[in-house]
């Protein structure tokens, strides 16, 4: 299965992935009206220290702790993609408590949202990858470590 991987040596720390993500999931057609002057709640974020930066989003784990821990049965794994049913989520943040990657955060309404690889929004493929100016975010199939 194709997943998102990052290469911290190529990341510029420009945060464009955050904006592209927020726009891709806004359901709007124009980036300026979707994002301008508003706080954004992207499903990918930049972390780093000193000169190192990199993007963090859901790893779509093969055995996801968030799925097993969700108190509302709202997170499930479908064809390898970890998805959250926002109509079931009660915003308890147990998934945040268990995700070892720090990949989950709530949306503006306090309900969880997460990277679903842009498979269900209008993009059809990860907007963060398409928009990364330096190829630091990659969407490809890698082999499971044995």
């Amino acid at each position: 299965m194709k997943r998102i991987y990052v290469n911290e040596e190529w990341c510029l720390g420009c945060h464009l992935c955050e904006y592209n993500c927020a726009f891709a999931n806004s359901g709007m057609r124009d980036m300026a009206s979707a994002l301008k002057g508003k706080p954004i709640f992207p499903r990918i974020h930049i972390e780093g220290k000193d000169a190192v930066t990199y993007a963090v989003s859901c790893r779509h784990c093969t055995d996801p702790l968030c799925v097993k821990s969700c108190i509302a049965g709202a997170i499930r794994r479908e064809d390898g993609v970890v998805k959250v049913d926002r109509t079931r989520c009660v915003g308890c943040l147990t998934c945040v408590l268990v995700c070892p990657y720090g990949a989950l955060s709530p949306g503006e309404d306090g309900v969880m949202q997460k990277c679903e690889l842009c498979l269900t929004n209008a993009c059809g493929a990860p907007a963060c990858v398409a928009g990364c100016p330096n190829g630091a975010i990659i969407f490809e199939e890698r082999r499971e470590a044995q």
Partner: protein
Amino acid sequence: MKRYVIVGNGVAASACIEGIRNVDPDGAVTVISAENRPAYCRPLISYYLEGRADPAKIGYRAPDFYEKTGCRVLYGQTAEAIDPAAKTVSLSDGAVLPYDAVCVAAGSSPFVPPFAGLETVREKYSFMTMDDALQLEKATETPKDVLIVGAGLIGLKCAEGLYGRARSITVCDLADRVLSSILDADGAKAVQAHLEQKGLRFLLGDTVDRFDGNTAQMKNGEIVRFDVLVLAVGVRANTALVKNAGGACGRGITVNEKMETSLPDVFAAGDCAEGEDVSFGARRVLALMPNACFQGYTAGVNMAGGEKKLTDAIPMNAIGFFGLHIMTAGTYTGDVYEEKTALGSKKFFTADGVLKGFILIGETQRAGLYTALIRNRTPLEGVDFALIRKTATSAAFSKETRAKMFGEVV
């Protein structure tokens, strides 16, 4: 064909079914369900009262879960006894079920101390099941004065659930602080202040001396008038089935890393079990939903002849009240580091070179990084601890660790 019996029909039972089916697609699975409903998300009962959880959407698994997994569910039945020699479970309706492996996932029951005059109280409830929530909903159709005995997780979640429905809510607890099982004195003070600001009234370090109809005479002298009483003093693991069959029990049913009890082919999982807490280094009842899932799944795999061990269980809670989020994990022992931030406070406990526990109040971003440090007993030697305790970030790990986290299939 192997015969499996699961006593209980909560989260641990559902996960147990999934564990069995992962190894054995064909064995006969029978689930004994005391409650007359499919497995549901028990912690959602307070959200239901609050109007934030749709009753049609609180099922733990899809409506066709039992059908798809090929399980027979016996609703409204309880297991009365296990005969480990004959390998049978006898049920409340007199039926006797033979098993090759049985999992006791019987949960816990509310513990009600013998209060004087309790029998004179008409409107009294526990807060453990969906039926309890439905009864409380009915009892508070018009605004009522509510007294909750117990300022723990259940009592306070109940208070939040009833907040919009009640005229007043008073919470008393024998402990001198709220959430005494998961918070220290500082944390409890901050949470209590937040709840008081919302209008909840607390009588702490105090308990009911006697009830008389609609009043409670407190030990400290005050008389509290109420319409509706909720008893949330605590819970006890349902250990009787295993204990009566001669199995080892502490506060819960004693289990090893494979969820085996001391009786052959008898497993236990969830709130009734007492397994190893690796942050504590001893067995503890970890009555929390993620643990029920981990344990249930582990039990299922092993029941079906697979091989799985649970070696990283710790206590951990994410709980919120009126928008204030609290996360706690592990054991509060060793050196203490405290960080105050704009949003709240974080407290960390380290010993033997590893993170042992934490208490986060209002500042919970990416807390899973901390939880993983405890569960994995990660040596802090290789972690920029000064950075990570301020900001939960994988930037505090080595480049190699990050390459694994973000460059490999995990």
